[in-house]
């Protein structure tokens, strides 16, 4: 009985301090010192929020760099993230990879003569873990560069330098792998050529 009472009091104290005090204190500190990050790293263009730098969004058509495939419903749903969960020998995975590869070939082929499936980097045809991976590999960005340059009438070198500028290297030059932030790259592209 004494244990029961102690337990109820203890969990009440813990809930007050750890459940409310700790997150509230952190939220107050965060909003005072690093509000943009605390609110979800939202990106604004002309005063309107167009997305988050930490979430992939759908880009279609030839004028934009495309993101990796997404398993969320609808695609790139940053309100319901998910893996695809298809196993390494799954026939459904084989079908999805083949379909994604065919789409990439159809889109990039005309601008990259001689492009075959062997030239497609793996991130272009596989779903990401979150479904909202904001990055593509530098290799996939380079593959798309010729199309962007042709459609937007930009020199290839200009597109490639934009890619380099928006490649997040390894953190502190050491941790993780380099990736190209697609939303930021596309926004920079829009600035360069309307």
């Amino acid at each position, binding site marked *: 009985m004494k*244990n029961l009472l*102690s337990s109820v009091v*203890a969990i009440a104290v*813990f809930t007050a301090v*750890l*459940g*409310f005090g*700790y*997150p509230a204190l*952190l*939220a107050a500190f*965060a*909003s005072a010192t*690093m509000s943009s*990050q*605390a*609110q*979800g790293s*939202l990106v604004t*263009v002309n005063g309107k929020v167009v997305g*988050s730098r930490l979430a992939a969004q*759908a*880009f*279609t058509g030839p004028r*934009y760099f495309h993101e990796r495939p997404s398993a969320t419903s609808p695609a790139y749903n*940053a*309100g319901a993230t*998910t*893996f*695809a*969960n*298809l*196993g*390494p*020998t*799954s026939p459904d*995975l*084989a079908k999805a990879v083949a379909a994604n590869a065919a789409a990439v070939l159809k889109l990039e082929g005309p601008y990259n003569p001689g492009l075959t499936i062997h*030239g497609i*980097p*793996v991130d*272009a*045809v*596989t779903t*990401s873990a*979150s479904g*909202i*991976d*904001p*990055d593509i*590999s530098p*290799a996939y*960005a*380079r593959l798309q560069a010729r199309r962007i340059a042709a459609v937007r009438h930009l020199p290839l070198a200009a597109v490639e330098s934009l890619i380099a500028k928006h490649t997040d290297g390894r*953190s*502190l030059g050491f*941790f*993780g*792998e380099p*990736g190209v932030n697609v939303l930021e790259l596309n926004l920079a592209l829009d600035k360069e050529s309307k």
Partner: protein
Amino acid sequence: MSGQGITQILFYSLALIALGYPLGLYMARVYTAERIGGRRFRLLGGIERGFYKVVGTDPTKEQDWKGYAKTVLIFSIVCTSVVYAIQRLQGHLFLNPNHVKGVPAHLSLNTAASFITNTNWQFYAGESTMSYLTQMAGLAVQNFVSAAVGMAVLAAVVRGFARRSRNELGNFWVDLYRSTAYILLPLSLILAVILVSQGVPQTFHAATTVTTVQGAHQTIARGPVASQIAIKQLGTNGGGYYNSNSAVPFENPNGLTNFLEMLSILLIPAAQVFMFGKMVAAKRHAWMVFAAMFAIFAIGVAVNLPAEQHGSQVLRSSGVNITQGHGSSGGNLTDKEVRFGIANTAIWTVATSDASNGSVNGGFDAQTPAGGAVPLVNLFLGEVVFGGVGSGLYGMFFYIVMAVFVAGLMVGRTPEYLGKKIEAREIKIATIGALFVPTMVLALTAISVVTKSGLASIYNSGVHGFTETLYAYDSQSNNNGSAFAGFGLTSFSAEVGSVAMFLGRFVPLLAALAIGGSMARKKVAPLSAGTFRTDGVTFSVLLVAVIALTAGLMIFPALTLGPIVEGLMH
């Protein structure tokens, strides 16, 4: 494997020791000091005494193992009721800006069991199922408290080894408070602030819907994320704020956060080995235990990383470029993120499955047969390779007792450990502690794959579906919480899973306390020439062998039915 990958792994290992060692010594002080703070931090001591007053305990009065266990159990039952109630009622409560409804009964039970037992198995998608109130006051509180319970029990068991001719192991409320206030909370605050600075949200604003560059609508979930992610990594909890866990950029935005979150997974469990060495005054022995754990960790990375880099059957035969280099990490990038690549997903996979953390930064269901077999086996070893905070090392004691016993048989005399005789009672309890959970895993998997209600949870067909089921019960019984996430929620899987988590937590916990209690009562015998030395490499090797021969052999038949068959196909 690239040079960069190897450097990152080496750096990770060094950082783990460099931070874990001093933290371990500090933790030893936290659990042995009569008063914390001293004259310089009088306020700390004041708050602590205030807590004991409202809880109604005399901090100088200690409990024997049975009393300690009783308090743990009653406290856990109370916590279960609270978390269950909050979920059921969340639709009518405050801090629910996204207007989510109450959680169904069987899912609430599974989630309550999951968070009380430090499992953090998630049959739900956090961002769309749980209100901010549930995440904060229900789940995040348990992230702290369930971790603190494990740490408290470990402290009590270690005291059992350190003491002679005593009955008491400590005061649960003191150990619980100190684990939380002096270890978990300060570390979480530091980590959470760094996480926010890198882009992990911490806000009470609702999810936002934006109009994208090309005019589509996109919902972006946010909330008090950083506060929860920090503790879920440090407390070996693993329950994500978002469904895709630490693969989601809002939980884990870049390489730096990934490194820190990965380090946090093993930090406290590794530190506890050194804490133990300090508390029983056997530092060399602690290093040997650490070496055995580290060896199993390294083997895991050495299997998982090349398997994933080699790629899955489907990707290899598809013809796409899975070669590493030229701006691509290559390999099996299905359900993985570009910014982590293969190497950092591999280290995470092994760390999280060794440590009973269960958070992931990539999907396990999509891993190659050999790659996915690594976490499967790691869980089955009983989460003793570093393991859960507290529960890892107290689980390792079962294997240590067995190893010492085996060594005793070989030299033909009564086994001793830390100067105390290991007798029939301890060996029996250790055997139950080590073998109960693996036996349960196999039994529940067997039931699940021969019943209609069990089969309904399978997502991928064929042998991979069997592996999904095996992994689900392996993960829940061992209180890990990671998943082959295709495995689905049914009322059957939710309820069986709840039972698995409760038994998987409390049977070993009680066994460990019982061993602690019986060790505390023993006298210390002087070392003799015939004593098997536990402070040499021979001991580490023997310990790894005992683990491999018990749990390792038990899972082998199941492994052949799952990943091994799948690896041989195609």
